């Protein structure tokens, strides 16, 4: 089908909003972003197929039928997105239950190694002076 400007703009807005939400730290916002992105992709797939009458033999002439394949792919993608949304929600809830917030923290080990680097020490204890000092 010929690209429809409304479609294209809606897809663009969904993608842009989705990306900016995914960049947030709070898991709930990331989840929202993922849903928006998923919907954007679904519309994009729909754009790839031909529009027309329902793809059932006998309802109309064969040439006017819509392409059913993108619709099937979108259905599959919707199911997958639904499952992922449920999982992310559970993850966010668990995170909130464990630590009182749903923000994704920096890696603990990363921070430790960064501190070591700032103090200009080797990691582990192969540095002999450091080893003695620990003892």
């Amino acid at each position, binding site marked *: 089908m010929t690209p429809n400007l409304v479609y294209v703009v809606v897809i663009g807005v969904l993608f842009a909003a989705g990306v900016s939400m995914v960049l947030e730290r709070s898991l709930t916002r990331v989840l929202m972003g*993922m849903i928006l992105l998923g919907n954007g992709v679904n519309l994009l*797939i729909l754009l*790839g197929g031909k529009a027309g009458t329902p793809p059932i033999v006998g309802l109309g002439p064969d040439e006017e039928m819509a392409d059913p394949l*993108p619709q099937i792919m979108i259905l599959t993608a919707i199911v997958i997105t639904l499952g992922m949304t449920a999982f*992310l929600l559970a993850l966010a809830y*668990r995170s909130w239950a464990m630590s009182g917030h749903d923000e994704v923290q920096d890696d603990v080990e990363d921070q430790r190694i960064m501190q070591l680097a700032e103090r200009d020490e080797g990691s582990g204890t192969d540095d002999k002076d450091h080893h003695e000092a620990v003892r």
Partner: protein
Amino acid sequence: MNFLVPLPVVMPLFGAALTLMMAGKPRAQRTVSLTVLTATLLVSCALLYFSTTDAPLVVAVGGWSAPLGIVLIADQLAALMLVVSSAVTLCVLVYSIGQGMADGHEETPLSVYHPTYLVLTAGVTNAFLAGDLFNLYVGFEILLVASYVLLTIGGTENRIRAGSTYVVVSLLSSVIFLTAIGLIYGATGTLNLAQLVERLDALPDGLRLILQGMLLLAFGIKAAVFPLSSWLPDSYPTAPAPVTAVFAGLLTKVGVYAIIRTETLLFPGGRAAAVLLILGLLTMVIGILGAVAQSDIKRLLSFTLVSHIGYLLFGVGLTTQLGLSSAIFYVVHHITIQTTLFLAAGLIEKRGGSTALDKLGGLAKLSPVLAILFLIPALNLAGIPPFSGFIGKLGLVQAGVADGGVLPWLLVAGGILTSLLTLYAVARVWNLAFWRTPPKSVPSGSSSLLPPLMVAPTMALVLLGVGLTVVAGPLFEVGDQAASSLMERSYYVQAVFGGGAP
């Protein structure tokens, strides 16, 4: 023999359903999982035999013929990957059963673990066998969903934190992959890989490059290629040892497999070759520098995992047959060795109580068996002759030298440097954890002997890794054969359609 092709996907899925119904009956669950995975391994071996001696095996799922329905294809590359991955999953399953028994099931809640593990296997095998881009996507999703559950199993604070990063990054890569699929369908009107070959060739160059870039981006995140790799060392080490081991062995390699498949079949001609080579170099060097800085064995191994993905890109980016066959050999080697090392790290954690290097010491005296189980794969990873790591790297270096360009030479230098730094990194682990006088925190005496069910699969994988050297000749031949049929795309198309694509 075509009826064999769907079995590696169907059997684990069926086993997953069965084990889910047997929740609360650990013994029955174990029997089912072990039977299913053993059967998968046997079927994969049969597939490898038939696909190397004869044409690739093709099955049109549900009897719908190729461009309409979905096809599953077991060619040499897919069958080879199936054999290695099912061997590794079987060993890791035995290991996790051993660990579950030893720990009183704390680390691996059995009722969820077995079904999820089998679903993960089904996803991996489905991705290898897929002859259709959308089916490849579904395979990825199956294995990713299972991996989310396995990574956050138990739901401790640490795993939830690490799991969040992993889940979000993986979801993002899936969205990018799906977008690429939507664009490819819009541009060509098909997703069947064999049919895409011709239709993609007919597209304008710029459009093809965009589609190629989108796919590479999606697979690059999954394969942990350098600028997209930082999620991996943060998330893998927090999971239970067997889970980390199977992730390290398989998940990134599925991404690499997808890169090899699309780069050779859909987008030949090496328009992205230079990019792949540069990324390969950066992945190797930066990954291994990260490994040198770590003070935890599991994290260190995660960084070596990222680093050695670079070798695979090196082979793929050369776009010569020698490069490709070396990369295929290296994938087999790397799956085996990286899994073995993570299993050994699990044993170290069991024996020494930790994987932090400053809390370990004197393990060589405490447990000589463990020392051997760690040392052999570690030397193998670093590429000490006569192990398979050396043979794989030698093949890549030869392929790079044969190419003779500036970039391949840079890659050769980077590869050798990475190999040396890998040796330094694992030697550091060896010195600190095994040879140093132990700090007081290490439990001594025979109070915590290693469970035999954990040692045996690790030993089996160590032997498999050493055995790769023995069978290196035939294995390289299979890799060579796979590479030549990958380079000659009509081979794949003919297997699906007989004549030309409709």
